[in-house]
C-alpha cells in the first residue's frame, strides 16, 4: 500500500486520479489545490509519493518541492502536467522530482510510475527522454570547471534514453539491449541524477534560453 498525496488545482483531475488508482495498492492520504495547501497537507500526512501538478496557483509545482526541501519527510515527487513544455520539465526535475509524466498517461502506466518512484527509481516518459538527449546533446567538450562524470551521458545511458524516446518500456529496453530491467533502472536513475546535478554548460544555456536560471 503506497500512501499518495495529490496536488492539483483541478478538482476534476484529482477525482479522475482517485478513481483510476486501485485502492488495494494505493491510499490517497490527502489532496491540495495550491502551494500553501500542499505544504500543510504533505507535512500533516507525510505521504510516500506526491503526485504534483506543475502548474499551481501560488508558485507552481517547483515551489512545493523547494518549500519542502528542508523537511526530513521522505516523500518522493512525481510531476504531472498537461503541458509538455521543456521549461516545465527542467524546472521540476531540477527541483528534485523523480519523474515527469503528462496527464494523458493511462491508469495502468500511472500506477506503474507511482510504484517506480516509490521504489526510488526515476520515471522517464518518451518526451522527457527526448528532452534529456537534447540537453546533453552532441559530444561538445564540457567546460573545464565541470565534472565529466556528471556532465556527460555514457554511451549506454544514451542508448537507453533513445529507446525510451522511441516509445519502448523499460522491460522492452532491457530485452533490446540484453540487460536486466534492473540495469535499465540504474541507468535511468543515473541520468536523472546527472540532470539534477550537472553543470554541463549546454544544460545551463538551455535553461537560460528558457529563462529558468
Amino acid at each position: 500500500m503506497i500512501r499518495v498525496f495529490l496536488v492539483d488545482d483541478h478538482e476534476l483531475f484529482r477525482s479522475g486520479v482517485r478513481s483510476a488508482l486501485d485502492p488495494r495498492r494505493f491510499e490517497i492520504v490527502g489532496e491540495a489545490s495550491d502551494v500553501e495547501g500542499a505544504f500543510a497537507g504533505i507535512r500533516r500526512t507525510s505521504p510516500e509519493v506526491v503526485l504534483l501538478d506543475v502548474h499551481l496557483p501560488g508558485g507552481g509545482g517547483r515551489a512545493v518541492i523547494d518549500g519542502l526541501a528542508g523537511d526530513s519527510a521522505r516523500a518522493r515527487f512525481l510531476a504531472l502536467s498537461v503541458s509538455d513544455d521543456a521549461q516545465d520539465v527542467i524546472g521540476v526535475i531540477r527541483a528534485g522530482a523523480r519523474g515527469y509524466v503528462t496527464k494523458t498517461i493511462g491508469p495502468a502506466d500511472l500506477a506503474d510510475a507511482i510504484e517506480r518512484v516509490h521504489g526510488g527509481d526515476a520515471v522517464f516518459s518518451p518526451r522527457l527522454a527526448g528532452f534529456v538527449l537534447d540537453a546533453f546533446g552532441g559530444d561538445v567538450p564540457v567546460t573545464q570547471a565541470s565534472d565529466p562524470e556528471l556532465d556527460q551521458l555514457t554511451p549506454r545511458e544514451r542508448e537507453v534514453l533513445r529507446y525510451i524516446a522511441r516509445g519502448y518500456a523499460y522491460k522492452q529496453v532491457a530485452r533490446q539491449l540484453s540487460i536486466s530491467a534492473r540495469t535499465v533502472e540504474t541507468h535511468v536513475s543515473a541520468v536523472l541524477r546527472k540532470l539534477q546535478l550537472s553543470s554541463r554548460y549546454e544544460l545551463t544555456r538551455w535553461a537560460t534560453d528558457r529563462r529558468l536560471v
Partner: protein
Amino acid sequence: MSARTGSKVATASRRRRGLFARSATDRVVAGVAGGLAEALGVDAVVIRLAFVVLGLAGGFGLALYLIGWLASEDPISGAPRERSLPDSLTHSRHAVAVGFIAAGMLLLLRAAGIWFGDALVWSVALAAFGSAVIWTRSDDAGRARWTRLATRLQRGPVEAIALGRVTRWRLAMGTLLVIGGMSTFLAYHYSLGSLRNAAFAVFVAVAGLALILGPWTYQLARQLGDERRERIRSEERAEVAAHLHDSVLQTLALIQRASTPEEMSTLARGQERELRAWLSDRPPSSANGSRLLSAAVEEAAAGIEQRHRVRIDVVAVGDATLDDRLRALVDAATEAMANAARHSGARRISVYVEVAPDAVSAFVRDEGSGFDSARLPQDRRGIAESIVGRMERHGGVATVTSEPSEGTEVSLRMPWRAG
C-alpha cells in the same frame, strides 16, 4: 525571411523601372518622400521638411517632388514589408547628410536667384530644422510604437509627446529652434524693439497658460497612458477570446455531439495539438510546407491522427530546416505512421526524430499486431517498398522490424550535413 525576400523584389524591380519605389503605406501626397526615406534610410519627416523648405526657394522643392515622382516606381503591392532600419547612429548621420544636401541646394538656388527672399526661406528652414528635431525619432522601438499608435488613433503623435516618449531634451531643442525661426521671420518684418515686447508678452502668456493648464495636461497625459494600457489589454483579451471561440469552443460543441468515445478523443486530441502550437507560438506552416523538420513531422502526425483516430506521440531531438532529403524522410515517416495506423490495430504510435551532425534518424513504432517479417502481407509490401524505396532514392536507409504480436518499428536514417 519575408523582409529579405521583399527587398530582393524591390531590387529587381528597381533595376527595371525606377530609382526607388514610392511608399504605399507612408504617404502624404504620393508617397515619394516615404519611398525616398526608405531607400535612403532616414526618417520620412526629414525628407518631407527638405521638400517643404526647397519648395519655398522659388518652388524648387515642388519641381523636385515631381521629378522624384516621375523617377520612382509604383509602390510594391502586398503587405508593407518590415524595414531593416540602420542603427540609430547611421540613421542620424543620414538625416544630417540630407539636411546638408538641402542646405547646399538652398545656397545654390539663392545664388541662382530662384528665391523668395532671405527672410522667408531662412526662417522657415530654421523652423523646419527644429521641427525635424522634434518629430524624428532615432530609436526603432519608438518608431514601431509610433506607427502602431498613429494607426490606432488620430491623436497618436500628440499622445506620444504627452507621454514623454520624445525625449524632453529633443523637445526643448526643437521648440527653441522653431521659436528662433519664427522670431527671425518676425524680426525681418518688425523692429527688434517691438519684437522684444511681443516676445515678453508671449512669454507671460505662455507662463500663465502653463500655470493654468499644467496640472490638467499632466492629468490628461496620465489618463491617456492608462487608457492606452487598458486598450492594449482589451485588444489582447479580444484576440484570445476570438481564438478560443474559433477553436476550442467549436471543438467543445462538436465533442458534445460526438457519438463515440473515439470520435471525442480524436476531436480533443486535434484541438490539443492546435492549442499547443498556438501557445508555444510555433510559426504556422506556410503554403509550401513547413520549414522545420519537427514541425513537418508534427503536422504529418496530426493529419494521420485525424484520419485514423489513433494517438501519435512525437518526440524530436534537435531540429533542422527541411531540404529534399529530409522531406523524403518526412514522407517516408508519414507513410510508416499511416501504415501503423491502418494495419497494426495499436491505439498509440510513437515517433522519434533525432538530428545528429551527420544524419537524421526517425523511428515510427507501434505495439500492435505486428507481422512475420519473412511473410509480408501483400498490401504491406507495397507500402514498405514505398518507404524503403523512397529512402534509398535519396541515399538513406530504411529498415522494418516486426514480430507477430510484438508490434512494428520502422527505422529511417538519412545521411545529412548540418548547415
